[in-house]
């Protein structure tokens, strides 16, 4: 037997004795989540031979505006409860296939509010036009602040304020309470602009010109309602605010997304730019950004200034 023939036989023997791994799809992730909870489904424990592929099949009953982002086989998303439903179950499939066959994994996720969470209660209607205006102004700036944690704490402080003998003394208690909450903000909450909210609602209360403690207390309750409604809304996936979208771009192989987030995100303070989507393919990030009516896709690492000038 010649050397060439012997080598061929050896290679063939090696191939035949090596175990051939058939594709196996595996999904890991939570069985139950709360509405709005950031959820990660991973297919990374799947076995796929070189040259094979895998893909997700989301539940067709998911609403049309359901959003997700895939990064390295990891699906990042959040679920909303359909109107009028106390809970819902969604089914996700992951199909893995290669030259040796295919495999399908199925995962069910129950979306259910936390036990004991009281259902949202509509606040009593506000009759006075000036108080309606106060709430409207407060709502605008609370949304801009985009900080449900602080909103909730501020609301709690305002609800707990006990009327003092004079309107000035009550206002002092309010200012001290608000400033204590703001001073003790932590982490990302420190990036939120609450001063604009304070200035705006202060201006409205000046216009209302409360002359006695009960009138002023009524203003405070309106503000608390506004802040509480913002806290409730935060449990729903937000569709236009980049803060939520950016949480879905962090994936195991999303190095450039992370780089972009760390270097450029802190500079986005005015929220003029909306990140519509952020994904990676072969470790190259792709961002769909929107400013005003201008939308553009950026691939790769792009300085924020360049993004802005491209969108203008």
């Amino acid at each position, binding site marked *: 037997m010649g050397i060439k023939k012997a080598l061929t036989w050896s290679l063939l023997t090696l191939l035949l004795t090596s175990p051939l791994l058939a594709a196996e799809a595996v999904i890991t992730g939570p069985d139950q989540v709360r509405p709005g909870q950031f959820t990660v489904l991973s297919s990374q424990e799947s076995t796929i031979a070189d040259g094979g592929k895998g893909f997700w099949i989301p539940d067709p009953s998911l609403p049309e505006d359901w959003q997700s982002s895939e990064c390295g086989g990891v699906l990042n998303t959040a679920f909303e409860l359909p109107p009028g439903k106390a809970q819902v179950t969604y089914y996700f499939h992951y199909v893995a296939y290669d030259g040796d066959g295919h495999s399908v994994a199925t995962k069910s996720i129950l979306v259910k509010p936390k036990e004991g969470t009281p259902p949202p209660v509509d606040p009593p209607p506000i009759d006075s036009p000036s108080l309606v205006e106060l709430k409207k102004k407060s709502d605008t700036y609370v949304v801009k602040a985009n900080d449900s944690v602080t909103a909730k704490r501020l609301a709690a402080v305002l609800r707990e304020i006990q009327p003092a003998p004079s309107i000035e003394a009550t206002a002092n208690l*309010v200012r001290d309470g608000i400033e204590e909450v703001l001073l003790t903000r932590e982490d990302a909450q420190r*990036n939120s*602009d609450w001063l*604009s909210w304070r200035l705006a609602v202060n201006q409205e209360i000046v216009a209302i010109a409360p002359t006695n403690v009960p009138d002023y207390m009524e203003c405070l309750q309106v503000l608390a309602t506004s802040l509480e409604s913002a806290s409730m809304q935060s449990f729903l996936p937000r569709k236009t605010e980049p803060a939520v979208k950016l949480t879905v771009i962090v994936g195991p192989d999303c190095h450039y997304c992370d780089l972009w987030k760390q270097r450029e995100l*802190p500079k986005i303070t005015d929220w003029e730019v909306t990140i519509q989507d952020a994904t990676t393919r072969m470790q190259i990030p792709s961002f769909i950004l929107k400013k005003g009516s201008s939308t553009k896709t950026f691939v790769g690492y792009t300085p924020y200034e360049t993004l802005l000038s491209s969108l203008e």
Partner: protein
Amino acid sequence: MAKRTPPVYTVPPDLVLEPDVYAAAPSNLWHLPKDIWSSIWAKVSGRTIKIAILDTGMNSHEDLPDPVSAKSFISGQSWRDGNGHGTHCAGTALGRNGIGVAPGAELIVGKVLSNGGSGSSSGIAAGIRWAVDEGADVISMSLGGGSSYGPTNSAIDYAWTKGCIVNAAAGNSGYNGRNTIGWPSKYKSCICNGATRSDGSIANFSSGGRELDWATPGQAIISASYRGGYATMSGTSMATPFGSGLLALIVELMRREGQAEWTAKESFNAFIAKFTEDRGTPGHDVRFGHGVPLYTEIVHALNNENIQWA
């Protein structure tokens, strides 16, 4: 190719050390006159703000709080101060009883300089990252060296991503037309602090260059001595904790009033350009930077006293 040796940072060279030591601090310090600062401290003192002093360590002193966190990056030496430089700086930044700018602030101590006054650049870079992770809002570094070191620069950038401001001494090499600013204060993301004298002029030892951001009191500064009592020292080392204490007041006011915090040095530049008294050559210059901070105006502007109801 020969591997580049990382620079060694030290207490800025040519530091002028005054021998005076007092059992008690004078009732009115030139750099913290009571008529101005009493009314400032009535409004803001640095409460809840953490200042990290990265220096030669710190010794217990009646005017200094116990550190909320302390660590030595010097092999074989505890975080205690066997030099005096670090304790003095801590006193100027946040000493109680009228010797510090932010007497309500909390203290983090990182010993990155040995009792001999020098330290490795890698230890300083590690110290910055450690202080940031310990929750420092302001890092004060009265130290410097002659060349840039990437990990230190990266650590300063890391600090900004966590909302922590790094203020460092310009150096004590004076200025004769050539840029004498030391590293890391020369780094673009680092605030560069020069020193002034009691008459308001720039101290002759204060290094100069286009990276200079501001100048604060740094000559004949009385503060805590590591042996107890009080000592006088001069240098941009002394000006830097003054600037850092002022930054702590600014951060407290901004946070308390509800402003979004600064996330890049550009925000500091924009702010301080409005609240400094321009000295030297008009506009930003190599000796004073933007100028000398206007303490009362800063507090007044940030305190939003017009917010009456909320």
